[in-house]
């Protein structure tokens, strides 16, 4: 048993914290208010190799372990949840799937610019009628000469309006059930690829989300990732990795909620005393700190299992489930501690509370996580 991070992990955590305080924190409220994707920030992230951290250096990444990437997502999310999440989707899912399932040529052509942060990736699975129920998807890919032709409508696609490389799931043989789905690389500018407009959302507003429509979208047949029919397995692997990222995002949100609550409750004076001296407030903070510690351990453990090449699907779901629900629960408390001020735009806790809702929904709802976990436990 060893609960210590390595020297490198500690140094990288300190560096990303310094980066976040210098470059992310000052613009977080503005990019939320304007639903803006801060391209300039992502250029800086790329310079520090934060956009391809766990990808080997031969493929343009930094060659760190997955836990280090997770720590970076946590620290970025502590300042801006949208930024942490965009990095998580890009690195944790899009890059990781190309690394794990792409062939050498695909890695050279698509993974290298992504891991260097020059291209942004997206994970394109969800459809209007197919959220948790992936089998209800209708998008198809039909082999036509040397091309696959894709048709269908995807929605709630993170990085949808701005991605350079779309990792897309479509049926190549609907009759084969789970074994009939395949996974494709669709580069930006492919004929028939139509990314939609950024949705107006409750929270996570600077993370760009849209529909992605495929209308007779033609891609070369070598753009299939793995073999035809492997898509479902690839998607599930993507979820496993992505969920640890969402869990890290929640740890960052919880840490920020705690930071803000501690600071405010020591400053805010009512009835002649700082409100932190009231047990009602102090206990909220105790619970917040405890759940933060628990969420962090679950998350780091899942990432550690991944680095040890052990199964981590159940642990990823547990970390995400617990982290998401704790983040929602405690950001509500953080707003409560801030009273009327917490309800005003521009207060960090107000943004934290809006941002905390989506982790209970995306990359598998909390209910879907319970399905995964109970499925594992009751096996």
């Amino acid at each position, binding site marked *: 048993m060893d609960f210590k991070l390595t020297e490198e992990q500690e140094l990288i955590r300190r560096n990303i914290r310094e980066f976040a305080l210098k470059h992310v924190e000052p613009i977080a409220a503005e990019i939320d208010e304007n639903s803006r994707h801060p391209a300039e920030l992502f250029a800086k992230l790329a310079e520090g190799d934060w956009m391809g951290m766990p990808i080997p250096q031969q493929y343009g990444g930094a060659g760190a372990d997955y836990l280090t990437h997770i720590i970076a997502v946590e620290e970025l999310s502590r300042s801006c949840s949208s930024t942490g999440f965009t990095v998580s989707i890009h690195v944790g899912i899009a890059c990781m799937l190309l690394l794990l399932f792409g062939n050498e040529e695909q890695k050279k052509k698509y993974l290298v610019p992504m891991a260097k942060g020059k291209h942004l990736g997206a994970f394109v699975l969800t459809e209007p009628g197919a959220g948790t129920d992936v089998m209800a998807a209708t998008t198809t890919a039909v082999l036509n000469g040397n091309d696959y032709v894709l048709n269908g409508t995807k929605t709630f696609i993170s990085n949808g309006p701005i991605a350079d490389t779309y990792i897309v799931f479509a049926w190549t043989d609907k009759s084969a059930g789970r074994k009939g789905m395949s996974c494709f690389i669709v580069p930006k500018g492919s004929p028939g690829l139509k990314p939609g407009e950024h949705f107006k959302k409750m929270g996570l507003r600077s993370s760009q989300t849209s529909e992605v429509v495929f209308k007779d979208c033609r891609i070369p047949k070598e753009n299939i990732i793995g073999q035809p029919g492997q898509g479902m397995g690839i998607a599930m692997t993507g979820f496993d990795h992505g969920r640890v990222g969402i869990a890290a995002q929640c740890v960052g949100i919880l840490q920020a909620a705690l930071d803000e609550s501690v*600071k405010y409750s*020591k*400053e805010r*004076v009512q009835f002649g005393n*700082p409100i932190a001296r009231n047990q009602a407030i102090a206990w909220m903070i105790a619970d917040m700190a405890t759940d933060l510690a628990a969420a962090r351990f679950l998350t780091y453990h899942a990432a550690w299992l991944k680095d040890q090449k052990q199964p981590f699907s159940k642990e990823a779901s547990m970390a995400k489930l617990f982290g998401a629900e704790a983040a929602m629960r405690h950001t509500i408390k953080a707003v409560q501690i801030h009273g009327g001020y917490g309800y005003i735009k521009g207060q960090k806790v107000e943004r934290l509370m809006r941002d905390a809702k989506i982790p209970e929904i995306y990359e598998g709802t909390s209910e879907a996580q319970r399905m995964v976990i109970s499925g594992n436990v009751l096996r």
Partner: protein
Amino acid sequence: MAGIWVYADNPSLTLELLTAASSIAEGLKTGVAVILSHDRDRAQDYIDCGADEVFLLPPLSGDRSAGDYAPVIADAAREKKPDAILVAGTSGGKEIAARVAARLDTGLCGNCISMSVEGDSLVMDRFMYGGAAVQKVAFMAKPALATIPPRAYEPSRPTPGRQGKVEELPAPPISGIKVAGRRGREKRTEDISEAQVVVCAGRGFEKKEDLAMAREIADLLGGSVGCTRPVSEELHWLPEELCIGLSGIEVKPALYLGIGVSGQIQHVTGIRDAKIVSAVNKDENAPIFAVADMGIVGDLYEVLPKLISALKKAKG
């Protein structure tokens, strides 16, 4: 024989060091010597102000810097064996003191904040950990060297009729450093180190324009505006000459009013000699309140307009 030497690169600091030297000379049963590079023709004035001996350093040509005197001072000390050498804590002084100490293989107490004689030895205090702690030091070799921050002592006043010796020191050897040019301070800002009232702006201000409120209060009180390090160094709202603290200016006004100042120790050490310390901060636990005589716990944006009108009313 003069056992305590002082060296500063300008007249007013030399007089301050004479006061410091006199304060320990008696305890060490010795006299005081001034090493003079400026004001060479005014040796008698320094004798009037407490020097028993004056060592004159030969003038330097314009392309040489004061640091070149280090070997001369070290050689003189090796020969005459003083008990202590006090050097003004300017940047030039701190460099020369360290180099002389190295040449004499002796100890140097940098930025000495107080000194006393215990038995027949010198004991000094200085800050460490950015001012969070006071380090007490004793010297294990002679001479004892120390740098004294400017304005820590009052300038020594003349007592007419004093007698003293004047001695020329040899010219310094050629050094490897050539001065190619000099520039005065680019922007002469007001000197807050002597202000009677200092209003200090801290990180609590949200934007630069709001500093106008601090300025207005300073004007009402006939004082000056200073700031904390983040305000000058990170936000660049005010020039660094107005930055108060361990690595900036030390102030000693009758009244210090910190507005939105958290009270980081590096800052607080720069205001320790203020007669009255007052503060406005919304964080009741801000460290500034622990070192303040009077504190208003409240948002500066609520407090300052009220304070301004109350001060106007008080002025009538």
